[in-house]
């Protein structure tokens, strides 16, 4: 297991490095003058900036160095959590990013809990009641989740619960330490919309895997030995398909921790994804770099752990790789 872990960790390195290159290149290929924006000038003031100030900032940003050197400096700084200054807010990028992390974490955790609470029992129930109305309902739910875009579903939910019924606030975020009840009220709609989307995703994988398992040799063997169908399903199939569930939950965790751009936008929820969209509108590239890097590294790292768990649950994998 240790060998597998190390091997898998080593594999992660080139991916992460390539991702950092891609993210760094962002700032090279974008139009615009980083010096002007760092100086707090709009570009139509270009003639107003004194030369010596411009040159000083040019050197401070290391723009006089060759691009690969710039990359190394940038990477070094980034590893220490220094992503430069936000062009819009003129405060360290890391401060802006960190201020948005809690909101996204709360939303991500809440939707993940909702997703698991819906998908796992529903999946098991549908599997046990194979080919009955429960099963069909699960199929319908999966199709609904895949076909209906979250932001549209979110709008309908806002329309019903916030506008027509007036039960819930339609937007925003209140920190839990400020007022826990209002925190929950603000969280419930975006978390449910996002959670149901993820639930459909989990259920879809679960069902494919479940059907896969049903056709495995061991099931046939068990059935041939005369074990009753229900028992086979409970004892063998569900246990095995749990591996798939863990995997898909893991993959979705990465997605949720990065936040959902459309849902955070729809609900004016001040999380990381919303920050990303705002930074994109404003072409605040240091912020974009930091958020994108965070999201991508999150995916890579979570995938790493998912693989480890998967290998732990399924010994065949780790021997095959090792």
């Amino acid at each position, binding site marked *: 297991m240790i060998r597998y872990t190390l091997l898998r960790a080593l594999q992660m390195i*080139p*991916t992460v490095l*390539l*991702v950092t290159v*891609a993210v760094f290149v*962002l700032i090279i*290929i*974008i139009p615009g003058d980083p010096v002007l924006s760092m100086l707090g000038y709009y570009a139509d003031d270009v003639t107003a900036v004194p030369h010596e100030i411009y040159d000083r900032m040019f050197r401070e940003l290391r723009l006089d160095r060759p691009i690969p050197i710039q990359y190394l400096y940038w990477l070094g700084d980034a590893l220490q959590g220094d992503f430069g200054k936000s062009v819009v807010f003129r405060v360290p990028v890391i401060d802006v990013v960190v201020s948005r992390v809690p909101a996204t974490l709360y939303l991500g955790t809440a939707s993940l809990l909702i997703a698991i609470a819906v998908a796992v029992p529903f999946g098991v129930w549908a599997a046990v009641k194979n080919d009955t109305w429960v099963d*069909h309902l699960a*199929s319908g739910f999966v*199709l609904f989740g*895949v*076909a*209906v*875009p979250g*932001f*549209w579903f979110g*709008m*309908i939910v*806002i*329309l019903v619960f916030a*506008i027509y019924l007036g039960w819930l606030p339609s937007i925003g975020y209140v920190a839990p330490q400020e007022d826990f009840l209002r925190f929950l009220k603000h969280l419930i709609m975006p978390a449910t919309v996002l959670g149901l989307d993820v639930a459909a995703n989990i259920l879809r994988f679960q*069902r*494919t895997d479940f*059907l*896969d398992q049903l*056709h495995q040799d061991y099931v046939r063997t068990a059935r041939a030995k005369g074990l009753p169908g229900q028992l086979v399903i409970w004892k063998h199939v569900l246990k095995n398909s749990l591996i798939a569930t863990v995997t898909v939950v893991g993959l979705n965790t990465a*997605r949720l921790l*990065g936040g959902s*751009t*459309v849902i955070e*936008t*729809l609900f004016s929820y001040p999380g990381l994804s919303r920050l*990303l*969209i705002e930074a*994109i*509108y404003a*072409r605040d590239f240091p912020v*974009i770099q930091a958020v*994108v890097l965070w*999201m*991508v590294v999150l*995916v*890579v790292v979570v*995938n790493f752990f998912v693989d480890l768990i998967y290998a732990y649950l399924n010994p065949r994998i780790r021997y095959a790789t090792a």
Partner: protein
Amino acid sequence: MNTNPMDAVSGAEPTAAPTWRQETLTQRVTGFFLRDRRAMVGMILLVVMLFAAFVGPRLVPYEPDQPNVRNRFAAPSWSHWMGTDRSGRDLLSRVLAGASISFRVAIGAALLALLIGAPLGAVTSYIGGLVDDVTQRCMDAIIAFPARLLAIVLVVLMGPSVVSLWFAIAFSSIPRYARIIRGSVLDQKEREYVEAAHAIGEGRLAILFLYILPNVLPPLAVQVTLDFASAVTVEASLSFLGLGLVPPTISWGGLLNDAQQWLEEAPWLAIFPGAALALTVLSFVLIGDAIRDHLDPRTRRRGGMR
């Protein structure tokens, strides 16, 4: 969807399967759509949406961008089936106009991903060695980016237009095509008939196209269909975020963006474009799932909805 009239057909001819070999490709495909209820429903939906997108705009009495300031926010009625928007424009005409944009973006993006991803996967895996390794790591890096995030970043870099949306959406699907092909090439490379072809002196490319490609066409077809679905959604999300197509170009995402601002005054502005979007995605997903299950014997069952 239990009242499918084609139930009778599939039920009446349970012995159709063994005679497959004698059927032509057209017959096989038609037979598949007649036999599988999901594929059937998906196909009907798709045909309706395509008809709406490409013929519909000619049938409606209003131009999609013709304002009528005296008729702002009119609720759905006989003269405006889907109501009107903030400038008094007919929503039905606008949803239809948005449909053709959606299809153009989705079809373009999916085909572009196929045209880049498939040859890339085939060539690099066939060459093997360092080229293959480097490509694989690049593909890993692309996959690490959440698809929508990648599309957002790319579309911002390239500016809002249909062509840049093709590239932005296609980019994240390229690795999937490359992987499908790669898996298949590695698998087939060792097969006897390929070795035999080598022996009789066929060139590498000829082997690739004559022997390997035909075998990977079905999984590619599934992937393209499912990519249509995701491309429609991604395009709508981008335009909803104001990053995709900008007005006056009409897109479903753009309509929903506008609708969000008037949710209370005019809920119909949100309901209809969203429904059109959902039905289109549904049609592709139904067809894609059906084909996939049909090709994959492990999950193939007696047909019907799953």
